[in-house]
C-alpha cells in the first residue's frame, strides 16, 4: 500500500528547502502555550495564525499549522495534570489520574508519562495513517447513527468505573450529566431546557462547565492547604523524574497501542474526535488493568491511556481531512481553509494526484512528534514550577485564568457565568460525595447519545431488524460485550486467586 516513488518525492520536497522546517519549533511552542491556556482551543490557536500562512508556501504553511495542532494537543495535558483543568475536552481523562499523581508529589512523573504517551501516540497514529489512510477514510463515511450510538454507549461504560465509593451515586451523577448534555436544540430542531436563555440553545457550554466542575470545585476545597503537594520534599522539579515518567510510560506498550488505535479510529469520525477517544481509551484501560481499582487515585496507566488516545486522534482527523476533504472538527476545518488559500482542495482526487504532498505532510508530522519530545520536555520542566507556588497565590491565579479562559471561548459573559454556576455545583457534589467526573463524562456524551439514538430511530422507522443491516454496529456491540465479558472473567480469576492468598496469609 506504500507508494515508494511518492515517498521519495516527499523526501525531496521536505529536503529541498529549509523553509519547511523553520516553522516547526515556533509552531510547537505556539501550540504548547495556547493549548495549555484553559479556554483557548486548538482551533482558536490555529485560526489566529492562519492569516500568517497566507504569505508562506503551501508546505511550510501546512507544516506550521500542523505543528501548532500537535503542540496544542499536548499542551492541554499540562493544566490537566497540574491544576485539574482540562484545557480542552480532549484532556478530561488526563485529569482523572494526572491530577491525583501531581497532588501526591509525582507531578514530574505524571508530566513525563503524559509527554511520552502523547509523542508515541502521535507517532503511532501517523504510522497507521501512512498505511491506512485510504481504508480508514472509506470506513469513516460508513459510520451511521447506530454505529455512533454504539461508540457513545461504549463511552458511557466509563460512568460505572468513575463512580468512586458508591455506584448509585456515580450513576446518578452520570445521568445528571447526560441530562445536562441534552439541554438546547436537539437534532430534530426541538428546544429543551434553555429557560429562554439564547446562550443555552447550543447546549451548556462544555469547556466552562468542565472547568467549573473539575477545577474550580477542587480549588475551593483546597483553600486550607498551603501547597498543592503537602510534603515539602516532594515539591522538587526533577528532570530525572520526568525522564523516569517517560520510561514508565514506555513500559505500557499495550496501553499506548490500544489508545492510539482508539484515537485514530474515533478521531477519524467527523464531529466526535479526541474528546471521546480519551474517555474510551481510559475506560478500556481501566477495565483491563489488573490494578484497575487504583485508577482515579494516581495510576500512571490512566494518564498514558488518555494522552495516547487524544494525541493520536490528530492522525485520524488528518486521515478524514486528506482523504475525504471533510473536516472532522475545527482544527481540520482551519487546515482545509489553509489548503484552499493555496488553491488545493482536499479529497479523493487530492490523495490520488498529490501523493507526494500527502506523504510529506505525514513524514513531517513524524518529525514534529520527535521535536515535541524535546520542546515538550523543556516546557513541562518549566510548567512544573507551579507546584512550588503557595496555594494562597495559586488558587486565585488559577481561578482568574479560568474565568478569562471561559470568557475567551466566545467572548461573552456566558462562559464565566457557566463556570461559576458549575463551580458551585461541583463543590456541592464533592461535598456530598458525588463523583463530578461522571457528570463531566455524561455532559460530553449526552448530545452524542441522544442525537444518534434519535437518528437510528428515524432511519430504521422503529424496526429493530435494521440492526441486522448494519454489520459494523453489530461488530462494535460484539467487541464491547467481549471486552466486558473478559473483564468480568479476569476479575473473577483475580478474586479467586486473591482469596486463597488471603486465607493462607
Amino acid at each position, binding site marked *: 500500500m506504500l507508494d515508494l516513488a511518492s515517498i521519495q518525492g516527499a523526501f525531496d520536497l521536505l529536503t529541498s528547502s529549509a523553509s519547511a522546517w523553520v516553522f516547526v519549533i515556533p509552531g510547537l511552542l505556539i501550540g504548547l502555550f495556547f493549548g495549555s491556556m484553559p479556554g483557548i482551543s486548538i482551533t482558536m490557536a490555529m485560526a489566529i495564525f492562519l492569516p500568517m500562512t497566507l504569505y508562506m508556501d503551501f508546505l511550510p504553511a501546512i507544516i506550521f499549522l500542523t505543528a501548532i495542532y500537535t503542540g496544542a494537543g499536548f499542551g492541554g495535558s499540562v493544566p490537566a495534570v497540574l491544576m485539574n483543568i482540562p484545557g480542552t475536552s480532549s484532556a478530561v481523562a488526563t485529569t482523572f489520574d494526572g491530577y491525583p499523581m501531581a497532588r501526591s508529589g509525582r507531578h514530574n512523573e505524571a508530566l513525563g508519562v503524559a509527554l511520552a504517551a502523547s509523542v508515541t501516540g502521535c507517532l503511532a497514529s501517523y504510522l497507521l495513517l501512512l498505511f491506512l489512510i485510504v481504508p480508514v477514510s472509506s470506513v469513516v463515511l460508513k459510520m451511521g447513527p447506530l454505529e455512533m450510538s454504539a461508540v457513545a454507549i461504549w463511552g458511557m461504560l466509563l460512568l460505572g468505573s468513575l463512580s468512586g465509593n458508591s455506584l448509585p451515586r456515580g450513576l446518578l451523577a452520570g445521568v445528571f450529566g447526560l441530562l445536562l448534555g441534552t439541554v438546547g436544540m436537539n437534532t430534530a430542531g426541538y428546544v429543551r431546557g434553555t429557560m429562554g436563555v439564547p*446562550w443555552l440553545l447550543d447546549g451548556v457550554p462544555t469547556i466552562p462547565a468542565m472547568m467549573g466542575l473539575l477545577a474550580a470545585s477542587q480549588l475551593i476545597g483546597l483553600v486550607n492547604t498551603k501547597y498543592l503537594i503537602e510534603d515539602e520534599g516532594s515539591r522538587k522539579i526533577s528532570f530525572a523524574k520526568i525522564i523516569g515518567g517517560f520510561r514508565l510510560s514506555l513500559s505500557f506498550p499495550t496501553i499506548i497501542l490500544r489508545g492510539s488505535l482508539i484515537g485514530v479510529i474515533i478521531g477519524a469520525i467527523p464531529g466526535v474526535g479526541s474528546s471521546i477517544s480519551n474517555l474510551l481509551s481510559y475506560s478500556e484501560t481501566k477495565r483491563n488493568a489488573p490494578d484497575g481499582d487504583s485508577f482515579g487515585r494516581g495510576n500512571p496507566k490512566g494518564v498514558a491511556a488518555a494522552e495516547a488516545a487524544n494525541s493520536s486522534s490528530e492522525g485520524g482527523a488528518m486521515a478524514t481531512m486528506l482523504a475525504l476533504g*471533510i473536516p472532522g472538527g475545527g482544527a481540520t476545518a482551519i487546515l482545509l481553509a489553509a489548503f484552499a488559500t493555496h488553491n488545493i482542495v482536499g479529497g479523493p482526487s487530492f490523495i490520488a494526484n498529490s501523493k507526494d504532498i500527502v506523504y510529506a505532510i505525514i513524514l513531517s508530522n513524524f518529525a514534529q512528534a520527535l521535536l515535541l519530545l524535546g520542546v515538550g520536555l523543556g516546557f513541562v520542566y518549566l510548567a512544573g514550577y507551579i507546584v512550588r507556588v503557595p496555594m494562597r497565590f495559586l488558587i486565585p491565579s488559577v481561578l482568574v485564568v479560568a474565568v478569562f479562559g471561559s470568557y475567551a471561548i466566545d*467572548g461573552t459573559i456566558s462562559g464565566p457565568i457557566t463556570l461559576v454556576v458549575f463551580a458551585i455545583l461541583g463543590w456541592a457534589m464533592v461535598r456530598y460525595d458525588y463523583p463530578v467526573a461522571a457528570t463531566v463524562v455524561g455532559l460530553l456524551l449526552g448530545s452524542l447519545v441522544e442525537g444518534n439514538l434519535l437518528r437510528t430511530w428515524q432511519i430504521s422507522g422503529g424496526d429493530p431488524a435494521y440492526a441486522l443491516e448494519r454489520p459494523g454496529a453489530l461488530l462494535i456491540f460484539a467487541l464491547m460485550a467481549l471486552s466486558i465479558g473478559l473483564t468480568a472473567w479476569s476479575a473473577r480469576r483475580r478474586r479467586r486467586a486473591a482469596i486463597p492468598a488471603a486465607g493462607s496469609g
Partner: protein
Amino acid sequence: MTTNITRRTMLRLASGGVVAAALAAPTVLRAQGVYPDRPINVVVPFDTGGYNDRLSRAFAPFLQERLGQPLNIINRGGAGALLGHTYFLQQPDDGYTLLCTSAAPYIPLNILTQDAPFNLEDFHMINLPSQDYTLLARSAESDITDIGEVIEKLKADPGSLSIGVQPASADLVNLMLLADANGIARDRLRIVTFDGGGPARNAVAGNVVDIGLAGGQGFLPLAEKIKPLLVYEKVQRDGWGGKLVTELSGADTAFVYGSQRGWGVHSSLVAGSPEIYDTILTAVEATSKDPKVIEALTAQQLATDWYGPEASNAALASTARVMEQHLDLLKGA
C-alpha cells in the same frame, strides 16, 4: 507700565476661552476624524472555519487596503447565528462594525423561529455574493438511477427511502415542496435529521441514508462519492449535471435558495450617516470587482460576484417571505 486688563477681565477671558475651547473641541475632533480613523470590526456570527469565517478572512486584507484601516474579524458563533446577529445590532451604527453572515436563511430563521429581538429591516445587505442551492443526491454506491425513480418509490410508499436533511432548513422546505408537487404525504416521509449540512452530506456519501438534501457547494469535495439527482436551480451550477427542478416540475415551480452569504451593515447607518455608508459601499464594490480579489477568492471556492445592495436586499426579503409561508416546516421537525 500699566494695563487696562483687570484681574476680573482676565478671569472672564480665560474662562470664556475654556468654554469656547470646550465648545469647539467636538467639531475639531469631528473635522479630524474622516471615516475611518480607527480599526473596523467585522462580526461573523459563526465559529472559525465555516464559510463566512473563510469569506471574511479572505476578503478582509483587500477591503482594508481600500478603507485604509485594519479589519478585525470577531467570531460570535452559536444558536444558529442568533447570538452573533444580536451582538452585531448592539454595536453602535457608526460604520465601525460590519457584518459578514449567511443572511438567508439565518436572519429570517432567527426572527421566525427564535423570537429574535430584531427585524429583517434592521439589517442592510451591501452585497450577498454567495447564493447556495439545494442538491438532492444519493451515494455513488446506491443503485437509484434518477429522480424519477425516487419520486415513483416515494409515491408507492413515502417511507420507502430514508432522507437525510437538516431540520429548519431551505433543504427541508424544498423536499416538502417536491412531495407536495407529486402528491406524496409529507408526514409519512422517513426523514432523518442531521445537525448541519456537513453531517447530512457525509451520510449521503457513506450510503447511510438512501437520499439526502443539502447545500450544493458543500457537496463539491465529495463529488466522487455521490451522484446528483436534482438541482434546485433554474440553471446548471458547478457542473453537477443532475436534473434541474425547473426541468422536472416546470419553469414556474416553487423552490427556495439555500444560504445567501455576504456583507451587511446596520440599516440605521444608511439613513443616519450616508457619507460613511457610501465610503463602505464604494470600498466593498471596488474590492468585489478587483480582478486580483476575484482570482484569490475563486481559488478558495469563495464568491465575490457583485450584485449590489438593491438586488441583495430584495433576494433576502424574497427568501424571508417564502420561509414565512413554510413556517410550519421550520419549527421543530
